[in-house]
Structure formats: C-alpha cells, structure tokens
C-alpha cells in the first residue's frame, strides 16, 4: 500500500476559506439557507466550514444539520460489509429552504442520490446544491456534479482518496492511497 499527499494542511485551509467565500457570495446572510453535512465524514467538513463562516466572516446565523443516508442507500444486502447507521440531526424544517449538501469526497454520486431522497422526509426544499472537498472526476455512475468543489482529481478505481481532519485524525490532509 502506497500513499501520496494530494493536499497538505495549508492547502486544505486555503480551499476551505475559498469554499466559505463562495457560499457567502451565493447565499449572503444565510437567512434562508441550511448546510447539511452527510454522515459519516461529510459532517467534519460541514463543521469546519460552519466554524469558518461564523468566526472569520461573521455570519451570525448558520443553520447546520447532519443527514445519515444509510437507510436510503441502494446497496442494502448487496454490499459485502453490513451497513452501519449514524445519527441524523436536523432540528429545523427544510421546507422552502436552500440546502447545501456537504461531503468530503464525491465519487460515484450514489450517496448524493440517497441524500436527495432522504432529505425529502424533512420537507420540500426550494433548491439543493452540493459542496465537495474532493471531486473524483470520471468516476460518476449518476448525472450528479458539485456546485462548489475544493479540488478536482483524476483517480483510478483501485485508488482511494482519504480526507483527514485535525480534530479526529491529528492533521488536515488529503491522501491518495493505492490499495
């Protein structure tokens, strides 16, 4: 197993600030916008972006939720490993809201498809956008593209992209791992 650094801590930080600025550009004061981090690893990115919006750009009221898509996945009983559920925490209605889904890596697009179905259980949103830190180009199974992307990478299927966060993995970094 070999691994290569795609992004180091400094690069991750620059990208996160750019993504936060792009969100402000589109959503202004976030009065009708909600951020939804996708479980399990999208929530770390969502937490970080929310923190940057509040602390650096003084956006007062950012609504943040976590969405677990386990029960909406299309590989139930087809996957080798049992699917493990995570906590969903959405304590607001998404009716007529502008939603931004936040995930760390966009790969086949199937998680996003599941998230689009899952979020309907909380109402009918006005629109849904997608923010991904890493966009794995040429590997999509569905017609889904990010609206905000951190970095686009070309990665073959046998390779894995791993995003690390300081709070949980000791450093901010993105690695390309050859399995």
């Amino acid at each position, binding site marked *: 197993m070999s691994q290569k650094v795609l992004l180091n801590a400094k690069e991750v930080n620059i990208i996160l600030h750019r993504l936060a600025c792009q969100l402000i550009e589109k959503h202004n004061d976030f009065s009708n916008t909600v951020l939804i981090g996708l479980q399990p690893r999208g929530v770390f990115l969502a937490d970080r972006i929310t923190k940057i919006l509040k602390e650096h750009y003084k956006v007062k009221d950012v609504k943040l939720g976590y969405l677990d898509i386990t029960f909406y996945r299309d590989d*139930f*009983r087809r996957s080798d490993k*049992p*699917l493990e559920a995570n906590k969903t925490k959405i304590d607001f209605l998404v009716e007529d809201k502008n939603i931004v889904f936040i995930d760390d890596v966009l790969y086949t697009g199937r998680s996003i498809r599941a998230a689009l179905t899952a979020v309907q259980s909380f109402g009918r949103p006005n629109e849904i956008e997608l923010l991904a830190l890493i966009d794995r180009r040429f590997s999509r199974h569905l017609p889904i593209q990010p609206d905000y992307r951190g970095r686009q990478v070309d990665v073959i299927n046998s390779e894995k992209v791993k995003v690390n966060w300081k709070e949980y993995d000791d450093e901010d970094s993105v690695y390309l791992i050859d399995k």
Partner: protein
Amino acid sequence: MSELSVNHLLGIKYLNKEDIKLIFETADHFKEVINRPIKKVPSLRDITIANLFFENSTRTKLSFELAEKRLSADVINFSSGQSSVKKGETLIDTVNNILSMKVDMVVMRHPNPGAGVFLSKHVKASIVNAGDGAHEHPTQALLDSYSIRERLGEVKGKKVVIVGDILHSRVALSNIFALQLQGAEVMVCGPKTLIPKYIGKLGVKVETNLRKALHWCDVANMLRVQNERMDISYFPSTREYTQQFGVNKTLLDSLNKEITIMHPGPINRGVEITSDVADSKQAIILDQVQNGVAIRMAVIYLLASKIK
C-alpha cells in the same frame, strides 16, 4: 461489529449482549426516523414479509405491520381464523405455501411453545417470533428493556420486578433473559400458584408480598392476568388478586421513592393497575408502544440485511 449473531429472532436466549446493544443502537436511529414529518425509509423495498398470526393480537400485529411498512417492505397478513389451517393443513405446509410466493421473512405468533424454532429448522426464511405460547416474546422484552434504558439511562444494575401471572407469561420469561443479559437484577412477584416451581433456577428472586417487592425495585413490570390460558382457578377471585397484587396510587405514594411502572398491554384497568396509575407520569406504557415500532424496525432491518 454491526451484524446480529443469529439469522432468526426466536427468543432472547439465543442472543448475546452485543446483539442487544446493536438492536438498541439501530432502534435509536429508527426512533428518530418515525418522528420525522415523513416516517418512512426505502431500505426494504425488495423484501416481502408474511405476518402469520395463529393467535389473536392487536398491538403486536399492528406494531410489526407498521414497522415493516415504515421500512417499505411488502407485507402480507394471515390470521388462522380465516384460513386453511381450519381445514387441517400442517404448519410447515401452510408456511411453505406462503414462501413459494417468494416471501423472505416470516413473523409468527403461535399458541404452541417452540413453534418458531421448529419452523426455522424446516423452512428457508428468516423467522421472527412474535410470541410462542408461554415460551418467549423476544420483541416485547427488547422494547421493555429499551424503554427502561430510555427512562433510566441504562439497564445495567437496575432492579426490576415482574408482577403477576409469571406461569403463563412469555413476556416474563423473555424479560428475565433480556434483563439478566444486560446486568439487571430481576424479581418475580405474584400468587404462589402463578409462579413456576423452578423459577429460582433462572437466578431470579421470588417475593409474594407486593409492597416489599415495590420497595426493592426501580421498575415494576405489571403483567396482565391471562384468563384465557387458565384452565383451572389459580386464585380465589379477581377482587382478591387486585387486593394483593394490584398497584394503586395510594400504594405507590406510600413508597419513599418514585418507581417506573410498565405494562405490556392490554391493561385490565382496575385489576393489575388502577387507571390513575396507568395514566400517571410514572407509567411509561405508551412509550413502550412507541418504542415497540422502533425496536421491531431494528430487528427486521438487521435480520433482512443477512438475507442473501
């Protein structure tokens, strides 16, 4: 570890501690799901479940059916009253006929103890025991423990007394197994005639004085007097039973602590508990019913994930 150790839910005695923990954690997620504006997930859309009830049931049947529908499974229902069982068909034949219609899972209530175990050895489908005679009622015990965990934080170390007709009760047996597996202390309390002779072998305390039992416990699970299973008189009269083993508000208030009251339903109001107790804040009877749906969703989901 996120898989059950069993392929069927036949009784609590076949489960281990980790299984119960996994079921509870999964039920937590489903409890959140059933409190959403849209209470349905599409996980089991390619699974068909047959509910076979060879014995009457309201709560359990509705609860299972709702759990299955909330998971998007296809559901077929069967009650022995209106079926060919009356014409002399055997259990295996009945079930195999149903399974040949491509059914993946069977939820069964049957008056004979061991019916689920027997069936699991002869047919190809996941079996969920929804009560077999006076043997086990595993989902009821799971939802009871889950409700205790919800109210008191954890089950471990808690003192639970099961009051009433222990002899005919599958709820009592499954609860004893489930509570002990999670490290709770269990006592049974009731008329001597309704306490099985060898109950001590299960490692439970026995008490015939209700007041003493209530003083000892954190939780009292009040069972229904099962008149339909009593072939002889086990106590002189319902009135006398109520006087000795019925819980009323005066009795509860005379204790120097607040205990939690549970009841698996259906309640005989005024017999095992009075209305003011059943409707009090100490009673978590309706929470048990709500948790029943989440627990059954978890059990069905976890078993279905093992169907290949």
